[in-house]
């Protein structure tokens, strides 16, 4: 267990380095730069600006300098939000994105696993068909459709919930974005749970448990559920990443001051340090989520635990 953690941390370093270098180069390949505005700057000012931010140095040297700084935890200044460092912008936006994404992940798991279980137990009956039909529909509906739809119905129509905004994370402002973000993932998790459980219930060890005179509820809870959730666990790593990136759209729809907004604007403005900072952070989080998914694997099936 400790060996697994250590090994993953060590392999995470080259992965992160690769991500940083690749996005650095890709950003620079895109035409335009941070100081290209409506009005072109004169040559002299422009050169001075480039020199001030080190953009006149050879690309390789810039990358090395940048890596040297992020190792010390310094993501540099934002080129567009002049009075802020990238770290300050992330500190503002990240808690909001994590709150929305984390709550959505929990909600998706609860709805998905619950619905999948309920359908699997009623396999072949109308309840099963209904749940699975709904799950397919949910996975097919993107958040930029469900988000505005929810706003129309629950905020503008019924007036139950606010239309948008953050308001220091008040619960009423969280409901619509979290639900809209969670639903497609809930659908996918429900399908995986349903299929996993249907398979697990036919396995030999479940027959052994039934032969022991256990009630079907106990058979599922103790013997079938954990093996059934293995595919769900392997989906959770990429899903958590999808929730983070999906948050970009949700934050725009519901006008939330999360990280996604900075990410999009940073890319459009060629705010190199901001984009790189957010990309590095996302990459780190995704590596972390996959590690957590691996730990969950080991709990679900001890055979998968690293030696």
């Amino acid at each position, binding site marked *: 267990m400790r060996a697994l953690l250590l090994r993953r941390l060590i392999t995470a370093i080259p992965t992160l380095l690769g991500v940083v270098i690749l996005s650095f180069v890709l950003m620079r390949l895109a035409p335009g730069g941070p100081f290209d505005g409506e009005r072109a700057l004169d040559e002299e000012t422009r050169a001075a600006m480039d020199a001030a931010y080190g953009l006149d140095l050879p690309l390789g040297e810039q990358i090395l300098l940048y890596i040297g700084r992020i190792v010390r935890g310094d993501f540099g200044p934002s080129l567009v939000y002049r009075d802020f460092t990238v770290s300050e912008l992330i500190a503002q936006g990240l808690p909001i994105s994590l709150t929305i994404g984390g709550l959505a992940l929990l909600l998706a798991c609860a709805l998905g696993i619950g619905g999948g279980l309920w359908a699997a137990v009623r396999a072949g009956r109308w309840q099963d068909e209904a749940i699975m039909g709904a799950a397919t529909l949910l996975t097919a509906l993107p958040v930029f459709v469900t988000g505005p739809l929810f706003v129309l119905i629950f905020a503008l129509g019924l007036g139950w919930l606010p239309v948008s905004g953050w308001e220091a994370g008040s619960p009423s402002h969280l409901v619509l974005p979290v639900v809209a973000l969670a639903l497609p993932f809930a659908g996918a998790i429900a399908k995986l749970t349903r299929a996993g459980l249907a398979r697990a219930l036919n396995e030999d060890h479940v027959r052994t448990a039934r032969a022991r005179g256990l009630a079907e509820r106990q058979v599922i809870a*103790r013997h079938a559920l954990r093996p059934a959730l293995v595919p769900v666990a392997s989906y959770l790593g990429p899903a958590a990443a999808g929730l983070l990136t999906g948050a970009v759209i949700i934050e725009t729809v519901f006008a939330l001051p999360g990280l996604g907004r900075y990410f999009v604007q940073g890319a459009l403005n060629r705010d190199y340090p901001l984009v790189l900072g957010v990309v590095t952070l996302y990459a780190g989080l995704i590596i972390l989520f996959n590690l957590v998914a691996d730990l969950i694997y080991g709990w*679900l099936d001890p055979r998968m635990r690293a030696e």
Partner: protein
Amino acid sequence: MIVYTVEDLSVRIDGKTVVENVSFTVEASQCVALVGASGSGKSQSCLAPFGLSPGIPGGSARLGDTELIGAGRAILQRQRGRDVGFVFQHPLTALTPHLTIGTQLSEAWQQAGAEAPSREAMIVALERVGLDEPESRLDQFPHRLSGGQRQRALIAMAIAHNPKLLIADEPVSALDASLRNDIMALLDALRREDGLALLLVSHDLATIDRHADQIVMLRDGRVEESGPAALHLAAPTSEYGRELVAATPRLTDPPPTLPETGAPLFVAGDIHVSFPRPGWRKGRVQAVSGASLTVHEGEALALVGGSGSGKSTLARAIARLGPVDTGVVRWRGDPLPQRKRMSPLHRRLIQPVFQDPSASLDPQWRVSDIIAEPLRHLRPDLAERGRAGLIKQVLQEVDLPAEFADRFPRELSGGQAQRVAIARALVSEPEMLLLDEATSALDVLVAGRVLDLLEKLQHERDLALLFITHDLAVARRLCHRIAVMEAGEIIEEGPAQQVIAAPTHPVTQKLVVASRA
């Protein structure tokens, strides 16, 4: 005292009747065996009354005073937890992978409403079924245990609530011969000591002959004959019974007539094979250490040993189908090249046939293409018509009709698929067949017929056979000599009759005792 009575039992699956008119009783301390080819309905007869199979039972099945047929789910569930215990065929999959042995044993202990057992009580229970290191096993997950150990743990769980009846569905057929014997001896002891009634499902007549009191022979879901086991196995009253008995080779059969052997075909000297340890651990596992073998023209050599003894690894190393560290193989005096240097002409010499025929045939290919594949490299001179002719010829040789050439593997039964695999091996005109447990996944009757086929080929084609098996009686039927392997070494080798009549190594002695019916 009668524990379990079955009268006029029928089982239907999807509207089709798979069991009909089956009646038998099981008394305390008695072992009743249900026998038959696969698909004869023996498992269904055992499991359907208890609601453990998709089949719908009819007729009557009484456990003590309780009628099971027509009982509701709740009653069946209670009955399963009270007076009956079950042991299933595949010990590798029958235990829940994410719960420790202790957790599962404790659950089984409490199934009839008993208090949670103490650690000491569970250790005693595991000791009773002969599980080594019971204390540490309690905290282990099932995958840490070998097949035999898992089967012992399963038996401990099946009898933890002191049932009156134990239903064992092929409890030993996934285990090797000496383990089989140990597990059956354990079941015998439980019958003697606890008065446990045993309903045994098996296709292994040798096991039944030794352990069962009563036998019920099933064919297509109907009772073909039933009565005292010893009597019916010695002198079956039905044609089917005679067929079943004849298909089971035994050590007491008259010695077979084997073809003459010629000059040495291959000599393998001092073969070593090792594999890297799994995971990040250092070092290697020695699978074969210093094994030497010789096979002559037309000779059949049996490579016998328990699971994990290295017999397949050695055979594959010799045929250059698997890795080898050191050691020389000479074929008619010339050294055989390393695995990656083998030319098609070298490959032709030794053709393999594996255990699971359905896994060794490509499901997307037609039988004719499967058989023709080796010809592409070996006989590039042959035109389409010539190939078709050869395919027809080998199909005939393995007793399959010519129209099988157009079939896909999924349209073949297990025995037919194994015949196709043999035909594919024969089409290259090999000098030796490497048969890796080629009959042990097959049903008794089917395996018997495949053995007949191999015997015929041995005589007609002058083929040498390297026959890997864990079954001494099967080895004796076809083979001139037997080599016994244990922990990667050949511990005994000699003429088949002699090894069986007077084994010198303790491991061989145990194997012979285990196989003697």
